[in-house]
């Protein structure tokens, strides 16, 4: 997976020397070979995902991978905040949930058109992100964490209490799979492809973003806010941009989830959902785009396996998470890179 190597400006000291090795003079001019191997591995992964429903006819597995892709989008969007901008949000489920509800309401009451439901959901998430982000980023550190948690719990309370709109504790059932033109995404395989399209688009868009000047501004804020101010950046606006973009992509994941699940309930906005997606980001590797996706895959696949055997999933997940925090803070991606570095050093000797 050479795709992991292609990370500019995103990693802390431990990885950076290797990345910077080839970069004298124009720090980001990657060698052509590295670029090609990134492309090859990216295309390999894409090809695997494309043929997956043909090779694996199991509806169950197709659904699991669909869910992984949806939560992959969700986790990548949170990582834009945590890993790139250095804003540890504990309320990212708010955007996921609001978009899920909005898409579900539009789909059940007005139209099951893909664009209408999706746009409604994403716009709703963005509209929520502007004021809540604007307020939350006035604070930093633990207060930011608390305020984002508080805002998401307000959304939770609204979902619970505004029965006329949200169905209250019953939630909204019977959310149809969307339609677009003549297409109907109701079979697991077609829906899988729909999600895959959005997943790939999100990955490419965020990859472009984090390598763009704006993405570098996010990283600058993560690394050193006061210096960013001193060289003329309006840090508040940069943070808000990051918050809103993260909210929009979180909303995309939420809207897709409402079609996938066919059902939206207050649980989807609850703080535990924010916690789970944060666990995915940390387990996979914050500050990378591949990491959160791997984290989502690890989390959901292990959850599926473990839950079929025992009720003790939260215990096992908690222990796994503690292990990653204590012993592998840079996540699965970091473990992979460390292993590669060790292998290279051994080969050289």
């Amino acid at each position, binding site marked *: 997976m050479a795709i992991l190597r292609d990370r500019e400006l995103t990693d802390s000291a431990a990885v950076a020397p290797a990345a910077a090795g080839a970069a004298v003079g124009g720090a980001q001019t990657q060698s052509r070979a590295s670029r090609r191997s990134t492309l090859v591995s990216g295309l390999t992964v894409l090809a695997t995902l494309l043929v997956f429903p043909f090779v694996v006819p199991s509806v169950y597995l197709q659904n699991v991978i669909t869910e992984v892709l949806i939560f992959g989008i969700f986790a990548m969007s949170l990582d834009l905040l945590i890993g790139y901008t250095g804003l540890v949000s504990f309320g990212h489920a708010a955007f996921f949930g609001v978009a899920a509800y909005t898409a579900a309401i539009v789909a059940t009451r007005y139209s099951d058109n893909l664009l209408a439901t999706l746009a409604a959901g994403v716009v709703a998430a963005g509209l929520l992100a502007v004021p809540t982000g604007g307020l939350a980023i006035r604070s930093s550190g633990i207060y930011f964490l608390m*305020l984002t948690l508080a*805002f998401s719990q307000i959304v939770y309370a609204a979902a619970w209490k505004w029965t006329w709109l949200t169905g209250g504790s019953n939630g909204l059932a019977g959310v149809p799979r969307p339609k677009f033109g003549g297409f109907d995404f109701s079979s697991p395989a077609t829906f899988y492809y729909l999600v895959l399209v959005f997943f790939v688009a999100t990955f490419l868009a965020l990859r472009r973003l984090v390598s763009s000047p704006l993405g570098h501004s996010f990283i600058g804020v993560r690394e050193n806010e006061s210096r960013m101010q001193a060289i003329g950046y309006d840090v508040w606006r940069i943070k808000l941009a990051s918050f809103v973009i993260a909210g929009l992509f979180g909303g995309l994941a939420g809207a897709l989830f409402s079609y996938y699940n066919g059902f939206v309930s207050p649980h989807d906005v609850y703080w535990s959902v924010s916690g789970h997606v944060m666990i995915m980001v940390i387990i996979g590797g914050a500050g990378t785009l591949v990491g959160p996706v791997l984290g989502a895959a690890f989390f959901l696949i292990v959850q599926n396996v473990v839950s079929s055997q025992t009720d003790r999933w939260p215990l096992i997940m908690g222990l796994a998470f503690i292990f990653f*925090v204590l012993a592998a803070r840079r996540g699965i991606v970091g473990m992979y890179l460390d292993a590669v570095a060790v292998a290279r050093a051994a080969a050289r000797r």
Partner: protein
Amino acid sequence: MNAQILSPLIIQILNGLAFSMLLFLLAAGLSVIFGMMDFINLAHGAFYMLGAYLGLTATQRLGNFWVALIVVPIIVAALGFALEKILLRPLYKRGHLDQVLLTFGLAFVVTDMIRWIWGADIRSVPQPPELTGAIPLGITAYPRYRGFVIVAGLVLAAALWAIQARTRIGAVIRAGVADKEMVGGLGINISLVFACVFAFGVGLAALSGVIAGPFLSLAPGMDAEQLILSLIVVVVGGMGTLKGAFWGSIVVGLADTFGKIYVPDFSLMVIFAIMAAILLVRPNGLFGRAVT
């Protein structure tokens, strides 16, 4: 005003205060840990829950609530001491975010172990026989146990204040909150102080849990609910101050109680709105110092 209007009001105020006192014990622990160690213990609700369930078992097995009230917080504090040494100690050199994340993982582990041991049914702790019945209050009467909660909370608040203001340990903790390097410079074993503070904080959470047992019911999810409220308390009151934890608890406890009566559909929102409003005016809470 006549007694018909007044007595329900008095009862609700007292209910709010009783709930405030439970929150205060929780928030005081959270706040002292934050003040000393600079991180938020997201497993605090789990230790509260553990206190409540251990209190249930101790009361049933020993047949005596009062023994449980003493023994359980000590057991949980010892557990906290060990966990600090084993799990949190290795993270000192890293950022505080890692400590927060670790306690988040710990919360899943502890609450799921509780569910494993005690099951998921709603449980309740019998009230100690001395505290059943009601206290006459002239125009009305009030449940004796809740009265005990209020009095116990106030006594503990006073005791905590006295420890903080009058004892050497309190002085060390106050100094540590203000300037950690200074404490190290005084030749005090700072890592022992950290372990003790963490143990003390989670011990208070467990104490809150034992007291809550005969008053609220025990069920999975009680940890998260109470953790979020006590987080709001410390944010509203200001991190790292006992005074902030106290007045923050009063504000949140009363807002929660009255919110549930007058605007039941929006009670959670009322609390969050109060918190957001206070933070907008005073970004470090009512009595808080600036957080860097």
